[in-house]
């Protein structure tokens, strides 16, 4: 369903998702089904926070709905009993993997590397002024603004 939903979610949410606490030993939310009406919506504050962290915008209601669905989908994980199970970072965890020696064996390719940059001065990449945070929600050009 791709219809834009500008309904209830726009209103301030009932709060942030519950903090984990003993989350990693939690068997799931009791008898709650992920799609049930008790499913909390993501608050505008969190959405705004995500836009800041990711430096990517939601663009429209569809974007937010996409996130909601993604979270709902991910909630199925809580049905699995992971008591006593260690997290797995890599399938190669039982092997010794090596970093190579910290010797400079190649380089001197400044010219090639700079070629792909749009703005540069001599051997510098040029960036706009830093240390200026993204404008607040009210001042920013974002879809979320309509929800304040």
């Amino acid at each position, binding site marked *: 369903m791709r219809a834009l939903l500008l309904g209830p979610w726009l209103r301030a949410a009932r709060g942030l998702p519950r903090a984990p606490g003993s989350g990693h030993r939690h068997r799931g939310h009791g008898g709650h089904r992920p799609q049930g009406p008790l499913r909390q919506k993501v608050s505008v504050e969190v959405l705004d926070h995500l836009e800041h962290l990711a*430096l990517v915008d939601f663009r429209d209601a569809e*974007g937010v709905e996409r996130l909601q669905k*993604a979270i709902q989908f991910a909630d*199925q994980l809580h049905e699995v009993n992971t008591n006593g199970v260690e*997290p797995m970072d890599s399938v*190669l965890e039982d092997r010794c993997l090596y970093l190579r020696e910290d010797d400079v064996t190649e380089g001197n390719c400044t010219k090639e590397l700079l*070629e792909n940059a749009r703005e540069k001065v001599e051997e510098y*990449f040029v960036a706009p002024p830093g240390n200026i*945070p993204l404008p607040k929600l009210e001042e920013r050009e974002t879809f979320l603004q309509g929800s304040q």
Partner: protein
Amino acid sequence: MVPRGVAARWRRAATAPGKGQGSLGGREEAAAGRESHAACLSPAGQPLGILDGIPIAVKDNFNTAGIETTCASNMLKGYISPYNATVVQKLLDQGAVLLGKTNLDEFAMGSGSTDGVFGPVRNPWSYSKQYKEKSVPKSHSEDKESNWVITGGSSGGSAAAVSSFTCFAALGSDTGGSTRNPAAHCGVVGLKPTYGLISRHGLIPLVNSMDVPGILTRCVDDAAVLLGSLAGHDPKDSTTIQDDFKPFELPNLTDVSKLSIGIPKEYHAPGLSSEILALWSKAADLFRKAGAKVVEVSLPHTRYSIVCYHVLCTAEVASNMARFDGLEYGHRSDMKDSTESMYAATRREGFNDVVRGRILSGNYFLLKQNYEKYFVKAQKVRRLIANDFVKVFRSGVDILLTPTTLSDAAPYTEFIQEDNRTRSAQDDILTQAANMAGLPAINVPTALSERGLPVGLQFIGRSFQEKQLLTVAKWFEKQVQFPMIQLEEVKKHDSDVFHHQKSASLS
């Protein structure tokens, strides 16, 4: 890029009567390619290596020096790689000819090869005699072009290139099934090697803990040849294992009585077409009749692999996509107010919905308040999934036999009815777990569906046991004798009446 002489000679050689439909002409092409190359490109007359003169296509998420690498995204349009990915370099060192970069879903996110900025990839089988004979036009005036089918994804371009005889082999990538899925839909062999066997240096990463370069060829022997050229430790990729890799030639297995084939019951997933179920059954019987031990096994956490993948993938994507800010390479917005706003605008302009969606989801799962609940939880579930496989292989099973896809290729117009995430969740269900566990897996084209489209079956092997996996796959390939595609010329201007139809059939 390939001199006309070589290409023409290669194609002519490929049309010579082959050993029969099963062999798919791999060896003849190789020989012709080598000879042509030696004749016109190498003055010294010395072949550079085993792939000398062989045209190979490379998925556009591998860096290729001096050649644009876009990942089918606006973010990298115009980006000229300053270096070759290790696998590309290895191919070139063996004398392979890089024919071109192939289309994909943007940043390899998707299961249809429909979401790249260059547009969707059309499955060559859409234009095959086999498909056309089975498709019933709704009316005389219907544009016959409109019922073309997708290639699957995300390495759709690579699969289509191999399937349409445009090249001898192609590189894809496989994170959740991105090589095996299009291989199944395009009727080609798609190999996902063990994680850690082939270098990822130069492959623009999606999920560092699951990505592998994939190999697409027309027969299993060719896949073994490519594997031989690509596998092995790379000091530039510390996730490649140190063990010595010895290229091998596949034996012609005749006695399968010592083999134990596992049939995981959970792979009878909801939505599996009855056709594929029947084919899977037939394949199991084939092994049984030939004397192999065929047992039903259980991988109980299979149904969570998609959810687990969803969390881990989006989390790693959120991290990997952070490098695209317009400063050093790629698209850069004109916004000049501040660094942050420039980054935000660049990313807003450069990424499509799918990519942005995954970045935002990933960041959500990585938030402090969600980290344990989602990300770490998913990592634990990953271990359970990997352990399922360990238990099964420990019980004496050598190879697992499963379907690769739930059905044959869907028409494009039907496929785009659902969004990318939904489709990926549906389509990756049979291929994803092998990435979770890092195991090698291969799609072998098996038969044509009722609609005249390819259907493949998947073999999953033990870690780093590619030789065994490919040996069994080759035996199976020989038994099923998958038919060659019979391509017909598409008359764009005259869709109603096919007057000057030229059959470029290669049989």
